[in-house]
Each structure stands twice: as C-alpha cells, then as structure tokens.
C-alpha cells in the first residue's frame, strides 16, 4: 500500500450505507492515494460483503495561533518609575509599587502607551480611543500583588494584520507570502522571576522584571505549521525593532512566544488545543510547533484524545512536555482595575477636550507621522531601486545593519548593485556566519571595501588581491604589530577591562579595528583580547 489513512474518529468519514455505530471495526482501513475524494470501496463488514461509497476526509493538519509578549523598550516600568534593566543585581530596580507595598497606586507610563499605539499603527490596527485596565488574579511568588494589571475587556488596539513571507517550496527558494490577523494588542505588566533552588528547597525571587511594560499581541489561528509561525515571529521582531518599541531579543526574554496548537481536518471544527510555552528563539518556534502538531496527530491516530493543557518546550530534546502542576485551568477572577481611569488616546490636537493638556496625552496623528520605514516597505524599495532579487532583500533586511551597509557601499563605490549584492550574499555573510561574528562589526569596513570596488570598476583587469596589495588594505599580518596594538587598547581602557563581560570585548575589538582601519583579522583579535582580559 502506498498510503494508509487510518480512520480516527467517528466523524472523520461519512459512510453512506452503514449504520454509523457499526462502521468502524478497529481493523477497518481505507486505502486511497489522495484525500478528499469519494472512493468506491469494498468493505468486509460483520454482515457480509458491502459495496459502498465512502468519503475520505482530508489529512489532519495543524492550526497555529500565537500569543506574543513583547517587552516595551522604555526607560521606566509600566506603572512605576523604576528603571527597566536587564543586567542589574537582583531586586535593585524595584519601586514600592513593584513590591506591592500596601497603599501604592499605579501611574501609567505615557511612553508605554505610545509604544503600543505605534505598534498598533504599524499593524494597521484599530486604535481604541478608550481602553480599560483589568486585574487578572493568581497567586505566584513572582507576582507580588496577587494580580496582574492587564487589558482584558477593552485593549488599546484591535483588528490588525501582519504580512510576512518565508522561503518555502521544493528547494526553499520560493518566497511564500502569508498574512495573519492580529486580534488585539494589550498593555500589561510583566512578572518577576523565580529561581528555584532545588538543593536547599527554596525559591528566590527577583523583582527587577516585575512591572515592566509588556505588549501582548494575540494572533489569530491563521497559521498551519512551524515555518509559518517562525516567519511571522521573525517579521514581527523586525517590525518591533524598526519601530524601537521592543528590542526583540528573544534569548533575553524581551520577546516571548506562546503557541496555541491544534489539529483538524480542513472544513471541520477546530480540534482541542494545547498551549506551548517556553519558546525562546524563532528556530524553536518552528521546532516546538511542528513537534506538537505531529504529537497531536499521533495521539489522534492512535485513538486517543488531545487534552487541553499547557505544555513546555524542552529545547534540548526538541519535545513538548505537559506542565501539569501549576498552569492548569484557572479562574483568573477578572475585575476592573479601580485605580486607573479609562485610558484615552486622541486622533489629534483638535480632538483633545477642553481642560486637558495636549502635551500630556497621546496623539495618534503625531505618532503616525513618525513611523519609520517598515521591513516590508524597505524590501520592496530595495527590489525596486537596486533591481535585486526579492529573496536577497529578505536577507539584507533580516540582518541587523546590513541594509545600511549595502547602501553605503553602493553609494561610495558607485558600483553595480547586483554585483555588490552577490558579494554581500555569498562572501560577506558566509564569512560572518562562519566566524560567529555579529554584524555590528560590519560598520568598520564599508569605506575600505568601497575603495576596492571603485578600483575594480576602473581597472577590471586587476584582481582584488592585487588591488588590496596596491592600496595597502590587506590584513595586518604582522603578529607582533597586532599584539602591540591590542595591548595598547587594553591599557587605554582600564574601566572596560575591569567590567570584563562580552559587551566590553566587542567594544575593545571595535577600538582595535579603528586603530588598524579595519584591517585586523577579527578572529585573531578576539582571541588576543580574550587572553589579555581574562
């Protein structure tokens, strides 16, 4: 048999002549090559030989919706004045409100509201002129008030759309365009962090993150597989970064993805869904979702039922596991937040009511006017302006700072864009990736590189190697010289050396590249600096 469909649930097939209760003996197997067709079949039933028509439903497929928590890029928290920091000692950025001291009251941060409105506008959402805050109750050690302030009844933005594309098709060389509806964007508080110390059976609480502003973006279940979801997340991340409303670093938890996954046969009601939490990279989004879809299909195919539950993705094993103990079905006992009046945002100065200071309110038209070029528009422009391939525009936009780099090279070298893009795509990126370098270092090079391109343009007969030699642009190959330069940089940056983290190393590398006009081998420099500072 080339393909075997197992009949899983009573509603998965319609049998014309059999008693519905009698149709499915466990041994029943329906054979066919394509789904969705009506086959004449011979079925061996208990009462003899029947000739009947059976409708084969389409194959089970995944349905994926996402809930994304994006930490708002702001100086202070959503309702208090404490700083938003990532690397700071535990409980060093905690206002009285964040620790829920009795008698404290929330005061809404205007920047956070603006960030949510900007984000809503970028996704073509309807911005609610009036939105409300609610309390969502649950006891958890890193939620000191016993409730989270969120926007359950009337969120700040609704009914948006995210257009995204990914490379799919047979060889993953085809740009697939998709869209997902954004149901709503709501403002809410982040929780603190719990650190479970199993050995001493205690839990340590860090409230630095407690009360940081979040935008929860709820995406409708318009996706069907991990690739789509991952691409949607990646696009969202790029947009948020372009807007600067969220820094979007998933490993630092600035962007957190929960996926609602279910499977069904197209045309039938949605299946029971599970929620997959704990996904902290776009790659894991794809893996977690695809694993979960396959798991659910297997469960159904073996005659089981999918349980409505919360599951955690374990990135080591690549599987999802049930989080039975704590995140079960809860009654959150929602209640209006009585300490915050309704949040009003206004179309423009003209719509601000008398007695309200326009400087104190959020004006939509002003924010709309300041929206930056979004990734989608940027890609279209690159394709249009430089006549490059659409998939190349994706790569350029996806890598932080690469578009600027690309455009500067073209501008300085007056080179043919399609030649430059070929070099960027193949040489530059593969080298960067091979050496595990962040694109941040790229900015050291365009001038040098454009000089080479310019010369190539003038004297096409000369090789790059020749040009580099002639222009003295080659790598600093003298070990002694490089060592000296590195030592000098280390000596002149005592403060940074003392702090000694990864960020500092990048800074020092930058200084070395400056000294050598970008002609030092980054890998070598990194090794040298690491040795000197450790």
């Amino acid at each position: 048999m080339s393909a075997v469909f197992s009949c899983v649930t009573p509603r998965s097939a319609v049998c014309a002549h059999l008693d519905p209760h009698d149709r499915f003996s466990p041994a029943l197997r329906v054979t066919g090559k394509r789904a969705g067709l009506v086959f004449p079949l011979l079925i061996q039933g208990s009462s003899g030989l029947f000739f009947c028509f059976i409708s084969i439903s389409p194959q089970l497929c995944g349905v994926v919706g996402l809930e994304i928590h994006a930490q708002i890029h702001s100086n202070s928290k959503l309702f208090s004045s404490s700083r938003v920091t990532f690397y700071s000692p535990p409980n060093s950025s905690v206002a009285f409100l964040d620790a829920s001291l009795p008698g404290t009251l929330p005061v809404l941060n205007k920047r956070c509201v603006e960030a949510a409105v900007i984000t809503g506008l970028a996704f073509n959402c309807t911005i609610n002129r009036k939105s409300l805050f609610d309390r969502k109750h649950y006891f958890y050690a890193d939620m000191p008030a016993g409730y989270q302030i969120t926007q359950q009844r009337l969120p700040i933005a609704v009914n948006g759309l995210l257009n995204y594309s990914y490379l799919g098709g047979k060889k993953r060389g085809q740009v697939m365009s998709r869209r997902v509806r954004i149901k709503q964007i709501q403002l809410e508080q982040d929780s603190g962090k719990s650190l479970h110390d199993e050995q001493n059976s205690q839990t340590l609480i860090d409230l630095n993150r407690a009360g940081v502003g979040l935008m929860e973006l709820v995406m409708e279940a318009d996706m069907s597989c991990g690739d789509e979801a991952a691409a949607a997340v990646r696009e969202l991340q790029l947009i948020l970064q372009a807007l600067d409303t969220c820094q979007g670093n998933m490993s630092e938890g600035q962007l957190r993805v929960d996926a609602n996954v279910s499977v069904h046969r197209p045309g039938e009601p949605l299946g029971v869904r599970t929620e997959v939490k704990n996904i902290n990279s776009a790659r894991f989004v794809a893996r977690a979702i695809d694993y979960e879809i396959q798991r659910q299909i297997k469960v159904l195919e073996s005659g089981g039922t999918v349980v409505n539950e919360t599951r955690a993705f374990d990135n080591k094993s690549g599987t999802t596991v049930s989080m039975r103990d704590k995140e079960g079905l809860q009654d959150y006992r929602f209640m209006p937040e009585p300490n915050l009046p309704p949040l009003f945002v206004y179309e423009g100065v003209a719509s601000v009511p008398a007695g309200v200071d326009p400087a104190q309110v959020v004006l939509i038209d002003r924010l709309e006017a300041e929206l930056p070029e979004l990734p989608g528009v940027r890609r279209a422009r690159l394709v249009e302006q430089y006549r490059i391939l659409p998939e190349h525009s994706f790569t350029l936009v996806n890598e932080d700072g690469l578009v600027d780099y690309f455009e500067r090279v073209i501008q300085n070298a007056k080179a043919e864009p399609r030649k430059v893009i070929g070099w960027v795509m193949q040489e530059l990126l593969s080298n960067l990736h091979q050496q595990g370098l962040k694109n941040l270092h790229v900015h050291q090079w365009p001038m040098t590189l454009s000089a080479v391109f310019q010369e190539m343009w003038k004297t096409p007969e000369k090789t790059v190697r020749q040009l580099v030699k002639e222009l003295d642009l080659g790598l600093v190959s003298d070990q002694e010289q490089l060592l000296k330069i590195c030592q000098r940089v280390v000596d002149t940056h005592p403060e940074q050396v003392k702090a000694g983290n990864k960020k500092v190393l990048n800074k020092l590398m930058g200084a070395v590249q400056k000294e050598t006009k970008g002609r030092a081998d980054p890998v070598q420099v990194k090794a040298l600096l690491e040795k000197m500072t450790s």
Partner: protein
Amino acid sequence: MLGTTIREVSLALREGRLSATELCKKCLKRIKKTHYLNSFITVTEELAMKQAQEAEHRLLRGKPHGPLDGVPFSVKDNFCTENIETTCASHMLKGYCPPFNATVVQKLLDQGAVLVGKTNLDEFAMGSGSTDSVFGPARNPWSYTSSYREQSPEQDPDSDWVITGGSSGGSAAAVASLSSFMALGSDTGGSTRNPGSLCGVVALKPTYGLLSRHGLIPLVNSMDVPGIITRSVQDAATVLGVLQGRDEKDSTTVQFPNLATSLPEDFDIRDICVGIPKEYHAPGLSAETLTQWGRVASMFERAGAKVREVSLPHTQHSIVCYHVLCCAEVASNMARFDGLEYGHRSAVESSTEALYATTRHEGFNHVVRTRILSGNYFLLKQNYDRYFVKAQQIRRLIAEDFRRVFQSGVDVLLTPTTLSDAARYSDFIQEDNRTRSAQEDIFTQPVNMAGTRHPHRSEIPTYSTVQNLETAHIYFTSCQRWKNLNTCSLCFRRCFHSLSTVFLAKQRL
C-alpha cells in the same frame, strides 16, 4: 486650651500665648490619661516633640508654615507613615513600617502639623464599631461623662461603655477626647461619618477624587476617601483646603476648580433648598433619631430655607450592592498579603502554597477572611455577571438618583447618619460584623456608591458630607456644592448653639 478649635489654638500659637511644645505635651499627657479609651495603637511621642520644637522655632520667628503649624493631629492606622508602624489593626501588618508617607499625611507634615499617634480601627477598616481590632475595641469617650454614668450607676465603667462607631473609631475618639485637634480617618461606606457622629465631632467625607488615596491602605479603591475629623466645620474646611488637590501618585484624583474652603461670612439660608429623602425612613430607624431628624428639618424651615421631600428610589438596594463590590475589591486587594515581601510570615514553609495559606489564615481575622472568600466567589467567571456586573449597574442607578435630585434644585440632603444612637459594646457584639455593617452603613454608603469613578467626565457631582451632633443624635448632609454644605452645617451649628466638644471638655475623662 485642648477643647478649642484649630482656628483658636492656631491663633494662640501665632500670638505667642501658647507654645507648640507645651501644646504637644498636653496632648500627649491627655493620650496617656485616656489610654483606657484604646483610641491609639501607636503614640509617636518622641517624633511629636521634635516636630513641635521645629514648629515652635518657626512660630517664634513669626514664620509659620500655615494655619496648621504646631497643631497636634492623629492618623488612622491604615495610612502609611514613614518609618512609623502601620498595622491596619491586623496581625498581618504588626511591626510593618512603611518606607513612605501617605500624600495626605505628608501634606499635613509639610504644613507643620504635629503627628501625635496612629489611631485604632476595625481590622483593615472592615467594620462599623471599631470593635474588631487586633488591639481590642476602642471606647467612646462619652461613656465616661458623668451624664452617661448617671444613667447606669450600677454598671462598672470597664464593662459598660458605648462603642465609638467605625471603622475610624480611634480617630473620632482622639478628637472627641481632646487628644488631638484633628484626625484623619478613611471613609468607604461611612467609616468616618459613622464614628464622627457617635463620638460627637465633625466628620467630613470629601468627594471621591478630591483627596489623594496614595498611601491609604485600601479597603475598596473605587469608594475609599480619606476623611477629616475635627471639632468645628470651619476647621474641617481649613484641613480640606490643605489636603485637596490633584496628586500625580493617584491617577483618580482631579483638580476641582473653584473649590471654596473658607466659610462665607454672610449667607442667606433662604437661598437653600433642603431635600429629605423619603426612602431614608428605613426599617429600624429609632424613634429618637426620627424625632431629631424632624427637628432639624423644621429648624431649617423656620430659618427660611425651603425644605422638601425627595426620592432616591434605588438607594434602598445600595447596601446589598455595596456588600458585593466591597467583598470583590477586598478579595483582590488582600491578595498581596502573602508573607513574602512584608508583614506576617507563617513558620510553615513546606511549600509556597502552604506558606501562603497559613500566613493568610494566621494574619487575617475572621471578618477579613470571610470577605475575601465571598469576594472571590462573586468574581468567579460563572458568577461575575450575576453579582459584580449587576451591582455595578445598580450603582449607576444610585448615582443617577443623586444627580437627578440635585438637578431638580435641591442644594443639600438632610438624612440621619445611623439608625440609632451609639450602642453599648455588650449589645453591639451580639450580632456579627456583617450584620452590624449592614445596619450601620445603611444611610452612609449610598454616597460612596454614587461617588464618581470617572473623573474625566466634565460634570462631577460632589458628594461631601458633614456630621453634626447634638448629644449623640447626628445628622449628615450631602450636597452638590461644598459652599452649600458649609453654609448649612454652619447654620445648623449656629441654630443649636451648643458645641458638643465644649460640653465634652467640661467632663472628667
């Protein structure tokens, strides 16, 4: 000197007839002498003397901060006071010293007023007798007047005394017993007005949003208001003037334009229309209270005011809805007391859940636990629409009742504060807290329910209330404009010519 008003004592201080330290010492002495009233939880003697000395320096240099400089005051123990224990009369917060001052406390301190202590209350302000405090009940100073003792000569003063009312009973008793010239209370369903009336002092519940709640440990956020207790209407107006105003730490406060906090010198009572809500002839209203109510109404009439019957049809349902909303917010507000960040922490640490459960069981009294339980029940998904939403709808109708009456030309409403006179403690505790609260708050909580929750609306109904006393038969007026309220209260005072506090001052406490 202790029995005078803020106005009088402030004048004496500024004219040098009285020193601030001397006054402070007298108040502290009075507190000690009347310790059996149990009106104070914490007496801040050292700090008070220091503050009094500073005030004295300013007064001597002729540069006082304002009318309250050097004037002793006390604060209900549910307002946060920096580095001073703030207990809410609960085991849960015993030993808790907040790191900040409530805005209203800070404003009084900034004016040079001298904090003498923190006063007793029902645990977390849940009660109407000041009888459910972890520190024991507060006693009404009037229980120790000769007139009261003569009524029941056979009784022992330690077992036969009347309650202060609540939940701000300690604050009311402190002002009535002349331990301080003013006190802060809080009013959610009548908690300032009720003890104010039973202790015979002026109690003002300002309009919601007029005074900052920052630092007031909440009972019901959407109804809580800091209350002002003084011995004269003029004083209440002065304190209101100091405390009112928008606070950036409380988003529900609003700036009220044209708020007049000084009393008009000449007013014509004939311009005033007094409304008598017929629904307030409630079951259980005592004959004495009814008589007094009628007396005051006819007094206004004789003085030339228009007096007419009005209807507030939905207010009769108010107490039930109040109970639902109160419990719901209590359940939410009390969720933070888990023993992790502050307050009592149970020794049971077998799991986080066990720690929560035992901490909360040990920390809260029966009343608080009961309200948390009911509140969580009302907020359950399956019950929310049937209880919380319904109560909110009725709440809107109640607000509408008040709005309509005031729009019809009524300036003030005249109603009793409580059904009857202050009860004897032994009688009062025959019923549980829930029953007593339902009885005691019946007349007072409708204005809390009607208090606006949306300060951005342009027309803001102002429901301020003031009590007055004629030997423990009390009336409150509720009105649209503060000026009218002041005017009527003052008029009421002048007509009766008897300052209860003067009377009380003559008694041997």
